[in-house]
């Protein structure tokens, strides 16, 4: 489903070149949950940006269902992202001027999808917030916002979920609830997800745990304690 072939990405600070991804290779099958570990600045967010088409690598190819997105224009990459990717952010990033229902409706509108009301209702039930449809995000707790954010990422049935530290801005208890939700709505439904995290409680979801070091992928065995 997702292939990264010889992907390299560099950043320059002044005249100094930093190699974030160095001939990086990655294959992710449909339905796989992959956790991405790494130190700060190791390139985890860069990897997510490249996979989602937000950024393009300096070299290499990225295939999503056979389409090399590095060859596409920025507009086409956006359209692919609209259809095939669901994003979950650390800071939730709900649209503050839209209600919960409208936040969920937005991806469906962008994709011109039908049965919007039904799908919104269904996913709100799944995330346990069907009574908050008409609430604005600033009236929700952190945990509730992240649940809505997860619902938004899933509602248009994307092929890949990208999650950037989804529990990073939550307390421990709430974080556990989110992990539990991700288990139910992502893992158990066989969706593909790549998640960046520092939380060891999330590793339980993973089919694979990988790490980035010196721009290269390192496979880590399952059930290793994360420091």
């Amino acid at each position, binding site marked *: 489903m997702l292939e990264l072939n010889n992907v390299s990405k560099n950043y320059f600070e002044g005249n100094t070149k930093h190699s974030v991804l160095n001939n990086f290779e990655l294959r992710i099958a449909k339905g796989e949950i992959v956790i991405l570990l790494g130190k700060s600045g190791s390139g985890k967010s860069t990897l997510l940006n490249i996979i*989602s088409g937000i950024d393009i690598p300096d070299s290499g190819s990225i295939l999503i269902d056979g389409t090399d997105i590095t060859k596409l224009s920025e507009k086409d990459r956006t359209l692919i992202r*609209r259809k095939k*990717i669901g994003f979950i952010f650390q800071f939730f*990033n709900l*649209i503050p*001027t839209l209600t919960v229902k409208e*936040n969920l409706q*937005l991806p469906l*509108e962008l994709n011109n999808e039908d049965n919007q009301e039904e799908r919104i209702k269904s996913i709100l039930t799944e995330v346990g917030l069907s009574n908050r449809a008409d609430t604005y995000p600033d009236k929700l707790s952190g945990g509730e*916002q992240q649940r809505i954010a997860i619902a938004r990422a899933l509602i248009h049935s994307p092929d890949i979920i990208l999650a950037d530290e989804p529990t990073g801005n939550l307390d421990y208890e709430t974080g556990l609830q989110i992990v539990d939700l991700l288990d139910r709505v992502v893992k158990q439904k066989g969706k593909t997800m790549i998640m960046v995290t520092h939380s060891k409680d999330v590793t339980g979801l993973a089919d694979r745990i990988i790490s980035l070091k010196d721009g290269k992928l390192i496979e880590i065995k399952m059930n290793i304690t994360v420091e």
Partner: protein
Amino acid sequence: MNNLTKSSLRYLIKHPWQFGLSILGIAMGVAIVVSIDIANYSSATAFNLSMNAVAGKATHQITGTSEGIPDSFYNFLKVEKGIRNIAPVIESYISIQDSEKTKTSTTSAKKVFKLLGVDIFAERPFRDYLSQTGVSIDGDLKNFLTKPHSVILSKESIDKLNKVIGDSLTIIINGKEKIIYISGIINEDGQNKSALENLFITDISSAQELTEKKDKIDYIDIIIDNDSKEQLIKSLLPEGFQLQKSGSRSEAAEQMLEAFNINLTSLSLLALIVGLFLIYNTMTFSVVQRKVLIGTFRSIGVTSNEISGLILREALIMGIIGTIVGFAAAYFISKVLLIFISQTINDLYYVVSVREIYISPAIIIKGVALGVFATILSAIKPAKEASEINPRIAMIRSDQESSVLKKVPRMTIAGILFILAGAALLLFPSKNIWLSYFGILPVIIGFALFTPLIIILVEKTFSPVYKKLFGITGKMASKSIIQNISRTYIAIAALSLAVAATVGVGTMISGFRSTVINWLETRLNADIFISAPNLISRRNDAVLPEELLLKIKSIDEVADINFYRELELMQEGKKYHIIASGLNKRSYAGFQFKEGNPDEAWKKFENGELFLSEPFAYRYDLNVGSILQLKTDNGMRDFKIAGIYYDYASDQGLVTMNYDFFRKHWNSEGLSGISVFAKDKNSLNLIKDKIETIKSDIIGQQLVVRTYKYLLDSSIEVFDRTFLIAKVLQILSVIVAFIGILSSLMSLQLERSRELGILRANGLLPSQLFKIVILQTFLMGFTASIIALPLGNILAAILVFIINKRSFGWTMQFEIIPSIMIEAIIFSIVAAILAGIYPGYKMSKTSPANALRGE
């Protein structure tokens, strides 16, 4: 409505003050531009309506020499040649002193009307209001035809004068007092109602008596419906007579006002440009405020074009609302401006009485185009910036101020290029006024692009000073301007533009004023000035009898006199203003020559060659040695130019010639003015008394007798009145810029609430927060003034050396005036501080708990 649009609209509603202020800025800009247009158009329309009311259905007019047309010629055409549809006309202006008695006082004001003398039996084809079609005339028509000096006038005029049929009126006509009798009322309900309001109609022979034109008429109206009739008429015209189309006088009047209107319109556009900065300011802010949000949109698949479309739609909404509000305000502002503008037109150009507002479709289209489309134009860059926001922003929280700082070198270079482009446009040899204004725009943009560099330099200079004087709060105040440079630089640029406009216009007016005063002091070298009462302050349209000259010369206390005669020539659709001067040699020094050696020039002048004023020579590309053709009473004649002199009496320009040579070519009797040189300066009052005695010997003659000082002061008063509008427009531009600063600071307050909450949580007092804001705004105002001063003086130089030159042809003084610059600095700082008071108060009230709470 889709959710992207909903999100956008709710954002606008959630920030009512921010967008409300922007809408106010657009509304004010549109209001000023449209109200100036309405006032100009209303004045022109009122004049054209009055011209049309007089011209009626006439297609052409026959005009004669400077003396007019002998009525025998009219009889020749009508009776001998049997030409149909012709009518004789005499036209003049009259003034009536109108005294209003109230319970507490009696006030008096001069009211001006037009007197039309017609042959009622020839009128039917020409003027509806005399042919009883849709019109009624109350009163006794027999009296109108038989009683001398009878007039009929509109119902509005009679009501205004508080008179009834049968009453008499004392009028001043051509400088003489006469009595007229009201014998009828015109009741007209058509388009002519407003034009007829100021029209008095009398029989042609009464008009001849009232104007003392003896056997003359002013012109003959004629309806020509085929070429052969036109050729026949032309073949019958004696030397010096002309057949011209009816509209030529209106066209000539429009031409006179062209430069005046353009300059007024351009000043009004300045207010709109400042308003557009405001829009750019607001849209840029709103994009910066919503960076994370826009990044989120982009992350979930909203394309760049959809983002830029969102921003442009917001601008469109603001533009539409602002334009509607602007039009509403324009209606009221135009009523006030109309008073100033029609006063200036009456002072300087022609008599017009403007009662109504007229709005043309072109004014509406222009207002909408400026308000709506210009708003969208100013939102293009922010929309582009929004579309370029990297979706990565959604995942990181760091501020992006560094991006503006990185662009400073590029912006500075771009600023230099813009200024050079503007200079190229301005220095391009052309007389086109609009090209000059298009050249100013890149100069303004160029200076605006320097703003971030100036901010950095000011901060580097002031940061240590502020820290030394005010401690850590001082340092924070100065640093915060850089830290929030993406917001602050636009607000500072807008304020600097408004202040620069104040400096520029103020410096230009001051230089012009000094030039005019110097010129007046040199030119007005007599002690007493005598003329008939005139309706236009800078033109004498009434004449004095020549017998007055000898009588005044014979006064013992009089050392010498000058005299002159003014004449307006209509020639090829243009109005030429001739001054025939009888000057004593001591007055020669009053002429300062731009071209031509004075000694040689005066010798040639005494031999019949002409002097041209600078504006005239500029307008018609004439130099010393050129030939100017003039329509004399004996036909077209060539005149050589002996000299070109500086003169500020008329922006239309003057043609000056020796009086004796004037009388060889024109048969106009009478004098327009006499100036008296006293033997002893202490005898001025005695001379004035003797002049009064002489005046009373000439029946009905009115004289205006003014001393040098009085004439100087009243001339300056007219000058000051003319530029009152410019000053009003300047003030309005500054108000718009003030709104810009206020808007920026309010936005900053919102943006920084978390940061301020942290500061408060760390122990900063509300008073210290307020102090930071005030110190910050002081520095913003000072920075704006640093940009405004050079820009303002450059604008002044452009106005003096290019725009006024191209508009009017005048050479004016230019000097940098320290007092204006000091005022500008103070004003800029005070405006910024005032704009910071409310946001400072709000910031100081920021609750640490609320600010620090998570999203």
